């Protein structure tokens, strides 16, 4: 007899929980996501850092402090098993004023308390040796070698693919409308796609975790959105070798300057608290972007000219009441587990959150978990043409000519890569084809020209593979269709 588990939210947290729970013979795991694909909420737009675990005060935020360092260590393993793009390049928290060293000392001490290895404060000379183009007035830095960067949506995709391979069922475009509770016990989840029976409901709904909790009858916290905006620059612009932070203030870790894993210089985020009902407001603003620019300049004075910007974006972090992660089995409703308020360092902590939830299921819900005899920890990364060695190209092209056809010029993404992405979309159950689904799997459309050449080619490939006309292909799910019909649709008077 299997215990049925419904996880609400297909972001990095829900996906990580699903992967961990997929190890157990006696669980039947369902992952429920309202968007057309996984990872499109909070996981989509963030700094993509694997933090060091030094900035969360274990007295104030014990969950964050505990899970961040644990998550960091787990990511070292997960990126290998799942072939997730990553770099372990370390962070420098830069001191610009003498007083900053007091804060760096505090961080060092806290880091040591949290179990962060190999941290130390370095002087000016060593800082400039590591990072020659940092603000020439910098005085030194805190050096945290275990910090890294990953592709955050590629990570969600990788984890979900692996979870599905291990038996997890994914329900996309499935919005939770209600949670059925009988005699204080959860019985399942009501959705726009019908009822999903469940003995355990895990709320990993990101920005909407407070609303999901409320639906289950538990109402002691709120989530409000905190917006962060970013700039990304064209390739070929020299960025830092490490993740550069300013010395933090009580409210923020500050604007980061980094070379993100695709090699583009990226700056951001700022932190702007939005009203509670602005949970879908990921618009960029002039003021926010300006703020980021000014602050980034403080540690990285040589920002490129504005016309070298290829994208600006904004993401939202779910800020919970109290500030710490809320991860617990709720006693009032048996079988309901909140995993809420997973703000920064949520991406870092996600694998550790997965294990935390497993422990809660065993310890608090009293379910004895039985490991599968054959659980597959591995997942193969999609073919990336741009990563192929010259001798591999011809072998691959001989087998499948689509790999010889470059679709995205800027990032050298082949038609073969795109077709593989579409196959994998179908594997996890993507029903509505979107350019974004291909983009997050292949990196097509993310280069200098932002897709002005390849988007149309990708649309046509999606249309062909999904058997629909090209105008029904979407940019990012239902409501974002590429067109309104064939080119004569208005003249025939048929468009709504």
């Amino acid at each position: 007899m299997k215990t049925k588990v419904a996880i609400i939210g297909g972001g990095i947290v829900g996906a990580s929980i699903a992967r961990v729970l997929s190890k157990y013979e006696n669980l039947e795991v369902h992952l429920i996501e309202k968007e057309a694909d996984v990872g499109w909420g909070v996981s989509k737009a963030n700094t993509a850092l694997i933090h060091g675990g030094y900035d969360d005060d274990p007295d104030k935020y014990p969950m964050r402090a505990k899970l961040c360092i644990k998550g960091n260590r787990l990511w070292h393993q997960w990126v290998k098993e799942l072939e997730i793009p990553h770099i372990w390049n370390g962070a420098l928290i830069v001191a610009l004023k003498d007083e900053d060293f007091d804060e760096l000392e505090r961080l060092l001490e806290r880091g040591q308390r949290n179990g962060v290895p190999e941290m130390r404060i370095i002087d000016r000379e060593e800082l400039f040796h590591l990072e020659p183009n940092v603000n020439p007035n910098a005085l030194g830095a805190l050096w945290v070698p275990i910090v890294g960067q990953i592709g955050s949506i590629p990570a969600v995709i990788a984890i979900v693919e692996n979870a599905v391979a291990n038996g997890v069922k994914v329900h996309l475009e499935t919005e939770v409308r209600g949670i059925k509770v009988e005699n204080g016990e959860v019985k399942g989840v009501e959705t726009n796609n019908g009822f999903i029976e469940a003995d355990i409901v895990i709320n990993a709904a990101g920005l909407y975790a407070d609303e999901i909790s409320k639906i289950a009858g538990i109402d002691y916290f709120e989530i409000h959105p905190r917006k962060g905006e970013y700039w990304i620059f064209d390739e070929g612009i020299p960025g830092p070798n490490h993740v550069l932070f300013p010395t933090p203030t009580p409210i923020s870790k500050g604007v980061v300057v980094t070379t993100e894993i695709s090699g583009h210089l990226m700056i951001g985020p700022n932190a702007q608290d939005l009203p509670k009902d602005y949970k879908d407001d990921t618009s960029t603003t002039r003021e926010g972007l300006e703020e980021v620019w000014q602050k980034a300049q403080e540690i990285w004075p040589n920002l490129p000219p504005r016309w070298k910007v290829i994208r600006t974006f904004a993401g939202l972090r779910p800020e919970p009441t109290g500030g710490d992660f809320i991860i617990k089995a709720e006693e009032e409703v048996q079988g309901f587990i909140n995993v809420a308020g997973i703000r920064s360092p949520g991406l870092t902590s996600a694998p550790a959150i997965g294990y935390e939830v497993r422990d809660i299921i065993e310890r608090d819900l009293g379910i004895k978990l039985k490991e599968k005899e054959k659980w597959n920890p591995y997942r193969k990364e999609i073919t990336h043409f741009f990563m192929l060695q010259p001798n591999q190209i011809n072998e691959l092209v001989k087998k499948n000519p689509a790999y010889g056809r470059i679709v995205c010029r800027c990032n050298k993404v082949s038609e073969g890569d795109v077709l593989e992405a579409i196959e994998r979309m179908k594997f996890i159950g993507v029903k509505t084809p979107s350019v974004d689904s291909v983009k997050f799997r292949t990196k097509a459309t993310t280069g200098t020209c932002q897709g002005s050449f390849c988007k149309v080619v990708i649309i046509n490939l999606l249309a062909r593979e999904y058997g629909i006309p090209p105008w029904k292909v979407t940019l990012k799910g239902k409501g974002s269709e590429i067109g309104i019909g064939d080119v004569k649709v208005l003249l025939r008077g048929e468009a709504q």
Partner: protein
Amino acid sequence: MNSTMLQYDVVVIGGGPAGLAAAVKAREYGLNVLLLDENDYLGGILPQCIHPGFGIHYFREELTGPEFSHRFVQRVKDLKIDYFVKARVLEIKNYSDLEKIVVFTSPEGAFEVWTKAIIYATGARERHAFEIGIVGDRVAGIYTAGEAQTLMDIYGVMPGKEVVIVGSGDVGLIMARRFALEGAKVKAVIELMPYPGGLARNVMILRDFNIPLYLSHKVVEVRGKKRVEKVKVVKVDENLREIPGTEFWIECDTIIISAGLIPQVKLLTDIGVEIDPATGGPVVNDLLETTVPGIFVAGNSLLINDLVDYVAEQGELAAYGAKLFIENGGIPAEKWIKLEKGNNIRLAVPHYLSGKRDVYIYVRVKKPMENVVLNFPEIDKKIRLPVVRPAEMLRIRLRKEEIAKAKDKITIEVIQQ
């Protein structure tokens, strides 16, 4: 790379009008030519330019884009020029003046081509919404003009029904007409500068279709949930600074960005070709040879042209350059005369003149002026013009005798009459 090795005199990269003209001309000179293009078909951007206005200078008749390209593609086939479509050049290697390798991949495999000369004609790309500083929501319904043109005229897709066009360059204006002809409502064309960006004949489209043009205005923000719902427009002063309090919103479901083109020169900059910041394309001599000997450039990857006729002309000149280069084992060393930019000149190409041959120089002004003289003080040449506009590229012939009069430079300037 385990790849098939090929050998040619000239490799032409890019099968648009510049590359086609170059390949045909080079073949006519008796050179062994390979033409590479990454699209499914030859012709570059022309097959989607279904409006007329092509070829008036070159063929002395008015053609559409597909008709213009068809004539060249037919020549390529008649002359049995080797070509690959769906072929993407990954790298150019420059071993010595007459030994270069072009590495490309295609569905037929990966190839390395030994060649003596390269004609680079990869065209331009369009500036997109992020480059022009538009903020707000990143939603469906935002297209570059070329993207919308590909969707409508190659794939038969109607992008939307209420359209705001950002930028009054030729592509934007032509797309305004295209949308109007298919029954869409074009609600406005928004132009940052105080004058239209396109050729006069294309600006007429706005009157023909009753489309409002907002000069000295700027789109600053896009809002929408899944798809564009409205755009925020603001007026700018003579220094292009936004004037507070002049903001207004236009409701629409589609935004077309037509904010200028940028030459695509990535493969050239990778091997150290010098770029002119004014054109965005390479620095060239009067045979359109770049600063790397034996690499020639033509068309929109050299500079952004108004007319396809000039593009074809540049392709043919580059082919002539490649022929001389191969015959002589390099372009014979010259005492190059530099073309200098004087008053109100934004760009001037080519950058260096030999004085051994007549040349066409291509010039754009910075701002419109009336009743002017185009002056070349060092060679005592003056051309009277009723009007000059940034949107209209000037093409001026300098005779070799005229050029020879200069010592080391020829300045070109616009002066009020």
